[in-house]
């Protein structure tokens, strides 16, 4: 057996049977740190040890509890690992190993197919992959890829206000993204409310609406309510309604500007902003009074 020819590691005695080493596992081969004695008080040297009482080679069938010696005499040395188990427990360990190995492989495969570009396999098994991944293992790592965002998208809002004397007036446009930008400037730890809230709410809105700003599906309705509530909250903080006034309707628009190419580039890009203006939205009663956030 060529394993022994190397003569370097007599601990591998069990290899020939394709089973884990039946000897008491010495921590050394298993420890990633090479720490000589993770077991702490392990007495003696592994090489000198007698075989453990329950080595399958010695005692393949008997249940350990049936062995009176095991109840009266302490084991010759601390035992652990598969090696210290009798055959039927080893089968249990092997089953666990197989189960975990399969679960790990399947999970990694599913995750790979989920993050990879749509391909033959992932198209064929789309439903299986989605069932496995959603809801808790969803992920997206296209970080600044394939291209980084090259536009500043500002979300702006204006409101129709009912004043205390019953008249109505329309406010100017509030540039909420510019407010976020100012809050982020010089801020070593920007809040998600400044960095993600509006930006992602707008992404959510765009991805759930068609080009005529009509909602697509239930998520479209949710995104509209969400965006509207952010607008109301922010207008409220800016005291847009003024003393005694209430918000009646809000209108949102986005202003998209290309990031100019670097100075040293000879590329020419239009930096004229492009607007996308949504219809006026009436506010439900509870939102006209504010109290969001």
């Amino acid at each position, binding site marked *: 057996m060529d394993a022994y020819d190397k003569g370097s590691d007599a601990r591998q005695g069990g290899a020939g049977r394709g089973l884990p080493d039946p000897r008491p596992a010495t921590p050394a081969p298993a420890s990633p740190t090479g720490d000589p004695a993770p077991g702490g008080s392990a007495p003696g040297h592994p090489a000198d040890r007698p075989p453990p009482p329950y080595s399958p080679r010695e005692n393949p069938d008997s249940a350990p509890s049936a062995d009176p010696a095991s109840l009266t005499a302490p084991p010759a040395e601390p035992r652990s690992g598969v090696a210290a188990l009798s055959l039927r427990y080893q089968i249990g360990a092997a089953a666990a190993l197989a189960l975990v190995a399969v679960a790990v492989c399947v999970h990694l495969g599913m995750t790979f197919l989920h993050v990879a570009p749509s391909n033959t396999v992932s198209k064929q098994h789309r439903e299986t992959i989605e069932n496995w991944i959603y809801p808790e293992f969803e992920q997206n790592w296209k970080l600044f890829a394939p291209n980084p965002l090259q536009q500043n998208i500002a979300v702006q809002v204006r409101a129709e206000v009912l004043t205390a004397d019953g008249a109505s007036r329309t406010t100017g446009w509030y540039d909420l993204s510019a407010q976020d930008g100012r809050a982020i400037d010089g801020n070593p*730890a920007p809040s998600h409310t400044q960095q993600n809230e509006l930006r992602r*709410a707008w992404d959510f809105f765009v991805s759930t609406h068609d080009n005529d700003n009509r909602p697509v599906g239930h998520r479209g309705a949710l995104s509209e309510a969400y965006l509207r509530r952010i607008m109301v909250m922010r207008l409220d903080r800016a005291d847009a309604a003024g003393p005694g006034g209430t918000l009646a309707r809000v209108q949102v628009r986005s202003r998209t500007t290309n990031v100019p190419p670097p100075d040293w580039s000879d590329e020419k890009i239009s930096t004229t902003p492009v607007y996308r203006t949504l219809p006026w939205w009436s506010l439900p009663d509870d939102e006209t009074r504010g109290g969001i956030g």
Partner: protein
Amino acid sequence: MNRLSLALSRVIARVTDSALGPHQTAVIRIGFGLTWLLFLLREFPHRQELYGPDGPWEWDLADQLVTTNDAFTVLLWSDSQIWFEAVYALAVLWSLLLLLGWRTRTMSVLFMVGVLALQNRSVFMGDGGDNVLHLMSIYLVFTRCGQVWSLDARRARRLKEARARGERPRDRVGPALWGVLGLLLILATLAGRTDSDWFIPALLWTVWLGQALWWLVGRRARSGEPRILLDVVANIVHNGALLVIMAEACLIYATAGWYKVQGSRWQDGTAVHYPLQLEYFSPWPALGDLLSASGTMVMLVTYATVAVQVAFPFTLFNRRVKNVLLAFMILEHAVIAVVLGLPFFSLAMIAADAVFLPTSFLRRLGDLAARACGRPVPRGGRARVPGPRSPADAPADGAPAKAPAPAPGGAPGPRT
């Protein structure tokens, strides 16, 4: 054939006999716990707006979305303010306790519950950093991440010393914690609050029952074998989860890198210029301008970023190259933290990177930390790995495992 079976049996021995990477799993436990803790503290003034029942993404909207996507979040169990404040405060507490490694297994479960509660409640508030934490909080549950650098490890040491003096200390906290959490789990299940996707509720039940089994086997089993088997199973699960965590980090880099290869801006060497000019990612505009002042520099950084991200998974086969790239990535994330104003994303990514740090480096780091705390470094100037959780006192395995486990025939339990 013999060579193959030899190699196979060696691998099997490795993954069954010990929970690999005790320092690596400890450092990611500390890293993710710290990231989430700092995030929650930073957002404390904004908590109502982010996750509160009356925030813009109000309770009712979240409830409608979660009904359709079946995600697990305890925050939607009630729309009351008290419940919200309690969950937020507990999420803070749990991340702190996980960081410290107190009842690590139980805390890893609760940490996950806290992360999922807030993130699934308001999915549109998160970014890549939240995504990393979300996944890793689930994976951490499967690991024995409290073997070193934890209160559990210290407790196990003291328990051993007490045993050596012939004392039989009893653990009351563990069973009590287990009992309370079990009661909550039963109540929640009976009330139909765990009708989300089956996975997380099943995981909660599995860990809870597993801890009971561990405790019972530790106390009752006449031979050491059932206990050793459980220990082996816990090792296998730990090692599987460690592999998943490493593969997940590779997937993140590979995805980010390979998609960039296809991007025209990454090809023409100007990509790095653009994020620096975005209103939402430029806390220090002057710094961004400075960094993109030289076209050559921007091109080099752009190409290096893609090359490193694409190459990283393959360098794992060469320790030295891997370490160089790892240092580069950690540095790059530190730069991103400042320049793009993404400290929590960067911290989460650095924590994920840390799983690949070499043990010798982590030990030196541990020694430094111990000295900084004014504590003597144990023997030979090296932080010592306490015996990887013996089945009898299982420091890393949460509540019920703490009970003293009388070994058969009065013999010391295995590996104590």
